[in-house]
């Protein structure tokens, strides 16, 4: 049984076919990349998987259960956590409380404080744990978002451009964090524009274009496929 299965998933907004028949199969313990040019449907797909967007057609199964029509809080409680493209932290809560928020759905026998402290340590946020998000630099706020998702003890982590706005060294640090999470067995889906990051971290990539599967496979081989190059860079004309 795969951890997450998508069968011909379609998300249409009126006449706009944001996702138009995407299929995927994610196994436990791997780090998957979803790449594609702007407007290829990556974020809409993640919204559909986390049930924040309706699914027009198709089927989504998580941990063997059909969750195509499930409420977002139901899939979250089943063990799916996510970050957002734009930072969504609560400014009235400290960094620690923001991370604690991620643990509030832990089973009654879970230890929210321990999970929070572990996530804060893992993301290197000890020095700012008592600060409020608005007083932190952009890259640090991104780390807090990731820590909140990690603290939840999720089985599947959906990361929507988690390194956007970070410096090169910060990106490398986050890449290292994602690799250690994978080593711990956490399945992750990384939506990313930075191909260098994808090549460095992902085990397998799916390429989307115009809301459809364009290619899939090992990162280095897949990004060098002519169809993928064309989708990213545009068609090259002989003699041009």
């Amino acid at each position: 049984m795969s951890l997450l299965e998508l069968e011909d998933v379609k998300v249409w907004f009126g006449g706009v076919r944001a996702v138009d028949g995407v299929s995927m199969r994610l196994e436990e313990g791997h780090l998957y990349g979803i790449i594609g040019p702007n407007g290829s449907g990556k974020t809409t797909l993640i919204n559909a998987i986390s049930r924040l967007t309706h699914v027009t057609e198709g089927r989504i199964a998580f941990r063997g259960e059909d969750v195509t029509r499930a409420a977002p809080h139901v899939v979250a409680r089943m063990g799916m956590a996510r970050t957002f493209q734009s930072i969504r932290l609560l400014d009235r809560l400290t960094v620690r409380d923001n991370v604690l928020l991620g643990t509030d759905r832990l089973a009654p026998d879970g230890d929210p404080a321990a999970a929070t402290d572990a996530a804060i340590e893992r993301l290197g946020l000890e020095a700012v744990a008592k600060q409020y998000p608005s007083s932190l630099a952009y890259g640090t706020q991104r780390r807090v978002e990731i820590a909140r998702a990690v603290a939840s003890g999720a089985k599947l982590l959906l990361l929507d451009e988690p390194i956007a706005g970070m410096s090169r060294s910060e990106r490398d640090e986050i890449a290292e964090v994602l690799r250690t999470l994978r080593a711990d067995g956490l399945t992750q889906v990384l939506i990313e524009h930075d191909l260098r990051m994808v090549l460095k971290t992902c085990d397998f990539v799916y390429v989307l274009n115009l809301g459809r599967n364009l290619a899939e496979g090992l990162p280095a081989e897949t990004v060098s496929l002519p169809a993928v190059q064309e989708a990213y860079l545009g068609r090259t004309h002989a003699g041009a």
Partner: protein
Amino acid sequence: MFDWFDSNEALIQSALALSILGFSVQLALRAGVFSLAGVGFWAIGGYSVANLVGDGWSTPLAIAVTVAATLLPALGLALILRRLRALYLAMATFAFVLIVQIVALNWDSVTGGPVGLFAIPVTVSTLGLTLVVIACAAGTYIWERGRHGRIMESLREDEQLASSLGVDVARERVKVFVVSAGLGTLSGALNALMFNTLTADQAGFGLITTVLMVIVLGGTGAWWGPLAGAFIVTWLPEVLRFADDYREVIQGAIVLLVVVYAPEGVVGAVRALRRLLRNPLRKPLTLKEAAE
């Protein structure tokens, strides 16, 4: 000190009773539920205990039964209004308050009709009221510091985020609505048993305006907001007595200034000051700087 207390006891009682209604509305607003239904339940609570105590019930029993009995209609109302948000919810709950007021004006045998109820037995003391306010403040303090406080914060700021974190948004909103209604009922019950009169015009637009002023001036960010707001709103007319006919104009101007320059009320102003003292340059901290 005792002289001051004696001459201001009525104001203190008013502020304390108002603060409980403030807790009712603040709780709802903190979870992003713009409900004014607490004011309607304030009237229901008042009329109910006035009749029960008048019939010989003991005060604690009358209050407990009244609060418990209003939870079911509050749940029904919450379910009916569950899809409404922001201004639409405010308008719907405002309509509920008007309906309660009209019923009160016409149900003479229970409410005394337009004349109202007089000579309600005064069975609640200032000490008793203070203890209830302390219990409400302590409850809010514990609530806001724990899991529920974080969940309320996420509900108000970002429902989509809350649901992605496993929060059943619809269920939590209903829960908050019902607890808010219960506090409104409690406030009305204590008010009736303290000031011995209750008329239908007390529970209308005027009370909504007053409690919103409590929230605006006090702030929604912490447990002590309704307390600060209630005392300011109660004392402000006294402090501004020198202004005679211009008193209400100045009062309105103060509210306007607070809304513009301190939109989170006294609570927000104190917090902003604290943050400024902690990070005077207001420069975003990097991890390296924070560690130094």
